[in-house]
């Protein structure tokens, strides 16, 4: 009898080009996303060595990290220059490198442009059962569609461009099981934060996760993208969802997805990928959906999670000395003190966007709460940055942009924006942001910035009240309904 295998093991086995005696495998890479920040040195390396891209048709280039999210073309269609010369130089390098090496580029003003992790699934470039890499740790997002997807460094970007392979050691497997039903006001982001809080930012190191259980089965593709996106925040380079009917329905008809007879053959193959009955995971983490509540981070690591109704923990409450020291350092940085109620924490900035939470469902959920409401007077800046040009247009067609702007939000062009401090969208030093992004690291949203990670509805709630707020309080009339 064939040994039962996990989804991860099936994808791995199907991509082994060569197995070495020490267990390292040369793994074939089916899909490669390239952006402007982690690729210039890789293309330069190819150029110096006189190497070419082995299969340019399997690579897609999209600028996202340091593009300003303000208008990119003037009324006459001329490029509005990027003020920062270094950002402009990285964009120019990508625009030069992609055609030189025969790689398709979705340019800064193309309607499909957006964050690579939003664009890949949206274009049907991301497919189940494929290996997909990108020089960005949030590549784990694509696991939502059943792709073995993980972030790589620039040397590996160059390796994949030149050879379409990577030398890898097989990871251990971890199942993350959430059974039950998510409560009122609880979103996929809260599930992701709950996982980080439970296992810690190193909990998944060395593992590929698979998300299992009724909560994940019932979750939309957008929700799964949010959860898979944050696998890396729990240490796992990759996090997988078994492809199912929702996956196929999402992908069918997308521009780069297979068509006709090839589509049928692909779906038949994808259906064989789910983890076999009896397959064994190296580690299992089980969370009861009923224990997950609207959550917020208090510190400078995504594992620093508490219920929004909770308080800032006392550093002395941590068992080990280095954790105590880290917690104290976090609180000093965040300007918070032990025992303070999270709901008393005033917010100056609100950011709805990033590869974690910038898809149409995220914008619908936030707009649903903001409709007919205004941001609080204490909010200095509130901004919505759609994940892609297509998300933006869809939202505009639904009138969501007007809800946001009438509430006092700015409505921007797609990009990574204020998730990371490398484009003009930054949070000033010492100021506090309720952010739907994925990392609350020191200085992440700009030097000295203070980040509280939340779901889109929680960000909207904070915008309305001016402080971290339990979104359930503002959803009174909808009590009993789960938020998408």
């Amino acid at each position, binding site marked *: 009898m064939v040994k039962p295998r996990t989804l991860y093991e099936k994808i791995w086995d199907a991509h082994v*080009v*060569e197995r070495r005696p*020490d267990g*390292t495998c040369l793994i*074939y890479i*089916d899909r490669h996303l390239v952006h402007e*920040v*982690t690729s*210039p*040195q890789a293309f330069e390396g190819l150029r110096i060595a006189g190497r070419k891209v*082995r*299969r340019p*048709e*399997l690579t897609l280039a999209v600028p996202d990290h*340091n593009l300003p999210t303000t208008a990119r073309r003037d009324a006459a269609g001329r490029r509005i220059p990027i003020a*920062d010369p270094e950002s402009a*130089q*990285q964009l120019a390098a990508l625009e030069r490198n992609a055609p030189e090496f025969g790689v398709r580029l979705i340019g800064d003003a193309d309607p499909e442009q957006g964050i690579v992790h939003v664009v890949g699934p949206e274009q*049907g*470039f991301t497919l189940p059962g*494929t290996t997909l890499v990108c*020089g960005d*740790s949030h*590549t784990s997002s694509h696991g939502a569609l059943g792709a073995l997807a993980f*972030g*790589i*460094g*620039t*040397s*590996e970007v160059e*390796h994949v461009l*030149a*050879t*379409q*392979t990577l*030398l890898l*050691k097989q*990871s251990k497997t971890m199942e993350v099981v959430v059974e039950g039903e998510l409560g009122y006001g609880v979103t996929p982001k809260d599930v992701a934060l709950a996982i980080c809080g439970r296992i810690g*930012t*190193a909990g998944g*190191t060395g593992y590929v996760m698979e998300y299992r259980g009724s909560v994940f089965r019932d979750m939309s593709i957008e929700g799964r993208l949010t959860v898979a996106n944050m696998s*890396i925040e729990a*240490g796992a*380079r990759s996090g997988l969802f078994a492809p199912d009917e929702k996956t196929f329905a999402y992908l069918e008809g997308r*521009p*780069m997805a*297979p068509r006709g007879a*090839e589509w049928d053959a*692909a779906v038949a193959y994808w259906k064989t990928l789910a983890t076999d009955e009896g397959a064994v995971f190296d580690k299992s983490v089980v969370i009861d959906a009923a224990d997950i509540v609207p959550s917020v981070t208090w510190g400078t*690591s995504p594992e620093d999670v508490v219920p929004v109704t909770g308080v800032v923990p006392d550093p002395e409450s941590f068992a080990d000395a*280095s954790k105590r*020291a*880290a917690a104290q350092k976090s609180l000093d940085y965040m300007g918070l003190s032990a025992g303070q109620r999270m709901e008393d924490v005033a917010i100056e900035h609100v950011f709805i966007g990033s590869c974690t939470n910038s898809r149409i469902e995220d914008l619908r959920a936030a707009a649903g709460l903001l409709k007919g409401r205004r941001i609080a007077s204490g909010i200095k800046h509130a901004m919505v940055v759609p994940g892609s040009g297509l998300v933006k247009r869809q939202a505009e067609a639904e009138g969501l942009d007007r809800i946001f702007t009438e509430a006092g939000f700015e409505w921007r062009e797609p990009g990574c924006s204020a998730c*990371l*401090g*490398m484009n003009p969208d930054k949070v000033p030093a010492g100021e506090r942001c309720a952010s739907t992004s994925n*990392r609350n*690291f020191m*200085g992440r949203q700009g*030097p000295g910035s203070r980040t509280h990670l939340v779901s889109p509805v929680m960000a909207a709630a904070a915008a309305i009240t001016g402080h971290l707020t339990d979104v359930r309080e503002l959803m009174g009339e909808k009590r009993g309904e789960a938020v998408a």
Partner: protein
Amino acid sequence: MEKLNIVDGRAYPFGMKNVDTDIVIPAHWLKTISRAGLGKGAFEVLRKEPGNVFDDPDYAGSPILIAGDNFGCGSSREHAAWALADLGIKVVIAPSFSDIFSGNAFKNGILTVVLPQEAIDRLMEVARTDPIHVDLEHQTVTTQFQDRFQFEIDPFRKRCLLGGLDEIGLTLGQADAIGAFEAKDAGTRPWLVPAVA
């Protein structure tokens, strides 16, 4: 890649836990299109703190960094490894590393050594006054006080570091195997080539 075997010298007694790559090199340093010169931005935020080890003249130019658990977590930016290399660091010793960081470090000729916390504590103590000796061939970290810690390393990584081997060049040597995989795959997964958008 430069060959690496014996590294002998002072070590930064850093020890911080969960150091993410935003701490190693903040995002605004990522706008370069070159690999060089990032040492200036290494640990920029921490260097604003008085008494930090990176600005202590005692440790200037140390080839070894001693860190805490989960070093290099977060972003995949290889700039973190480039920044450390530019700072002159050849070995990072910690109880654990993020997967992406240790891969990036290795590809830039930086050895990551995993040792238990007790060993780290001892090395932190020695590093404040005396040098540390790392021997890749024999997989040991030793001090002049008879401390001797053995570490594990992936044999392939060891061979590449000792020989200064170019991984892309090695893989291109397998072009026939890659071609054979592609030929077979074109039959079993014909949908793999993206439809033209």
